[in-house]
């Protein structure tokens, strides 16, 4: 039998862009600029992963275990040197001007190094996506400027998005369920603004963000008709951070409770848009669920890469693990899962570019203008005026309205399919990788058990994998289903409970 030859081995991390993304490489023949953006992002992310994430991920986690209030300041500073907090901000607002897709590619690469650190960057992107989907370009420009200026100074202005409430998680992820949700938070209209009361829970970056994109109804009895996004600054009287959660994994990214007690915010804090439930939220989730798909792929890949390294260096029964057929088959299965997962989120990403949120950014010629104009002009008052004008905002709203139902459905369906598939495959690879490791994998210092803990979150947030299946049913199986039977009565047989 031929034994393992390290010289003849080409590791996955050395794969080129086109090996990893053949579909995108093919697409790039028609849109060379897009391809260049993607490739550049992969390169940058790979470098950041190698130089910062890999060397620090385990230490950051130990630090949080030791002190739950620990903040990964070093990682935040390092990421801002790379410009990761502003990559997808339009150039006209001072950012990198790259597409959401490019950011997603970075998320896989960074997430394969550490899902927690990658999440810290990614949820910030979720907030930008949410703000952009409201079409309130004035607010978008304000947030983006704060962000890019902070980033340049090495102190990025971090964002969080707060949707989940103690009594409503799944229920606030879907417009039909929202009708029966028991909400505790509300922004009650008062003279000159709103008075916010209530609580949001599990908010990623909640304890470290400077601005929170808080999703609130102005009348919690009519959430579907009255829910909007509000920008609330840390330090606003009446707003405080509650408990910072003790989580199983993803420890580098804190999740916190946000508490509002008679917190007054001015009228201008409300992003100017139609109520969000419906199109706007669907567009955001269609885009970001693909991003969670990239993290599922990252989990699958991180597990695979570590198992591969282990298999090449450790022996079992006198032979290198990699010389055992069962290990080879497992590694092949893990690689197959990575490929499958990646294909799934790339579909989600492309359907978002074709039919979803990213399409809107490019539809009115914005992205072309930004690409062609020099930065000096983009920063000028005239361009700012055009970008934040009422006409631009209305144009954006019209673009949302003009999307066909099937377009939004397609983007949502691919987002949900990717979210479920990739995160399940991510967990599956963790199980497979732990088998390859054996007892060694149980140790924190080997890095694989961390992925197992980190990856589990991906099946829960951004809509549980159960909710995302319901979404998929509504978008791609039965598009006529307007609301599911919300209070299904269990069958008679099921009612005869059996206690454990």
């Amino acid at each position, binding site marked *: 039998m031929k034994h393992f030859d390290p010289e003849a081995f080409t590791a996955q991390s050395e794969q080129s862009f086109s090996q990893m993304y053949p579909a995108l490489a093919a697409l790039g023949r028609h849109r060379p600029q897009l391809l260049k953006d993607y490739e550049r992002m992969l390169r940058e992310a790979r470098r950041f992963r190698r130089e910062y994430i890999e060397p620090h991920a385990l230490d950051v986690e130990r630090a949080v275990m030791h002190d739950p209030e620990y903040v990964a300041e070093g990682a935040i500073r390092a990421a801002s040197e790379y410009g990761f907090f502003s990559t997808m901000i339009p150039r006209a607002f001072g950012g990198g001007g790259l597409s959401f897709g490019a950011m997603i590619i970075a998320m896989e690469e960074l997430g394969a190094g550490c899902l927690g650190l990658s999440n810290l960057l990614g949820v910030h992107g979720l907030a930008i996506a949410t703000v952009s989907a409201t079409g309130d370009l004035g607010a978008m420009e304000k947030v983006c400027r704060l962000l890019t200026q902070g980033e340049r100074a090495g102190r990025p202005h971090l964002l969080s998005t707060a949707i989940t409430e103690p009594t409503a*998680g799944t229920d606030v992820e879907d417009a039909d369920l929202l009708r029966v949700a028991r909400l505790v938070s509300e922004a009650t209209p008062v003279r000159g603004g709103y008075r916010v009361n209530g609580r949001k829970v599990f908010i990623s970056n909640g304890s470290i963000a400077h601005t929170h994109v808080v999703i609130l109804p102005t009348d919690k009895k009519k959430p579907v008709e009255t829910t909007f996004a509000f920008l609330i600054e840390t330090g606003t009287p009446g707003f405080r951070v509650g408990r910072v959660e*003790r*989580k199983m994994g993803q420890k580098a990214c804190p999740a916190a409770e946000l508490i509002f007690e008679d917190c007054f915010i001015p009228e201008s804090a409300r992003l100017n848009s139609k109520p969000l439930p419906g199109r706007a939220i669907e567009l955001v989730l269609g885009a970001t669920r693909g991003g969670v798909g990239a993290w599922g792929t990252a989990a699958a890949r991180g597990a695979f890469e570590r198992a591969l390294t282990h298999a090449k260096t450790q022996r079992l029964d*006198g032979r290198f693990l990699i010389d055992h057929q069962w290990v080879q088959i497992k590694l092949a299965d893990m690689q197959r899962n990575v490929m499958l997962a990646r294909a799934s989120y790339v579909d989600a990403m492309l359907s978002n570019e074709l039919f979803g949120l990213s399409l809107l950014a490019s539809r009115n010629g914005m992205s072309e203008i930004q690409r062609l104009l020099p930065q000096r002009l983009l920063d000028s008052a005239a361009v700012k005026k055009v970008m934040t004008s009422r006409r631009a905002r209305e144009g954006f709203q019209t673009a949302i309205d003009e999307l066909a139902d099937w377009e939004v459905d397609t983007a949502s369906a691919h987002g949900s399919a990717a979210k479920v598939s990739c995160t399940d495959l991510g967990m599956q690879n963790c199980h497979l990788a732990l088998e390859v490791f054996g*007892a060694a994998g*149980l140790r924190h210092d080997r890095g694989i058990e961390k992925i197992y*803990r980190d990856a589990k979150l991906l099946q829960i947030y951004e809509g549980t994998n159960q909710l995302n299946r319901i979404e998929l049913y509504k978008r791609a199986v039965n598009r006529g289903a307007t609301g599911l039977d*919300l209070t299904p009565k269990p069958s008679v047989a099921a009612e005869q409970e059996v206690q*454990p």
Partner: protein
Amino acid sequence: MSELGMLRESVRRFAREVVAPTREALNHFPERPLPAGIVPGLGELGLFDAEIELPLLGVALEELSKVAAAPAALVLTHAFARALVREAGGGRSAALGGLNGHGLFACPIYSELDLSDDAPSLRRVGSEIELDGTASLVVGAPLARVLVLPVRDAGGWGLVGLESSEPGVSVGEALLTLGMRGCPSADVSFQRARFPADRLLATSPDVARRVARRFRGAAVAISAGVLSSSVAAATEYAQERYQGGGAILEHQEVRAILGRMLEDLALCHEASELLSREGVPEWRALAAFLRAKERAAHATCDGVQLLGGNGYMEDYGQERAMRDAKQAQFFFGRTDVARQALAGAVP
């Protein structure tokens, strides 16, 4: 009350009154010190006694694991390591094992004990043996008096039994592990350290295989205990959590997941029962053992899922169950390696 019933009751009480209040500290080991009362309490219950019968041990471990699996893993490891020493026989074995009830035994219980690839190497030098290298993840080592370790003996296999206080034995810092936090483990290393030859207790891996076979039932009891607490917590939560217009238990998908968890729990209990019987064919015993451990590990992931975001938080215990059950899957080594041994058995 039968002996078994009495033990079950006293372990339950101990788990509820002593272990439960320290769960958080246990879960944060080694970042936080080990709660003081646990190990002596386990001793008082007689769980470290040499005489304890395996079916009784299984019952105790399941009850403990319903509250916290880490102390159960410590008890199992001790009993198993001690049984290895006894099985090896010989004078030294009697000396190590004879001091009843005093001093813990440690061994790398998550490894394939009959293989010794990453074990320290052994060289015979005159009337002595020389050990070199590191035994990884030796469970119980930071607390143990006796370390029972497989070694590589010129390509072959050996089992050594050493006291941790002997010169040349170096026990590393307590390791952070996926699960069973609060059951301290550490690396044990040797730098060409010499010991009297009687420290080598056995040279045939059959010793490890025989003992592991006997202890399968006790190991599965831990998976069963962990899963049973996960099912109970998930059921309670599903009855109380309102979402989608009713208690989530009313949603058919939630029922389906919970139903599958109960199927897996039933499987664990069936395995426990099968493994406590005499004369069960080896292939059936091994199959039941592997399946139960593996299913418990998967089912506890669903236990987290059913609690949504709360499941991911330490407060609800589901995340601990998920980590502990995964770690318990590795008792006596990988499922896939053992499965290789299963194939070829003629039913």
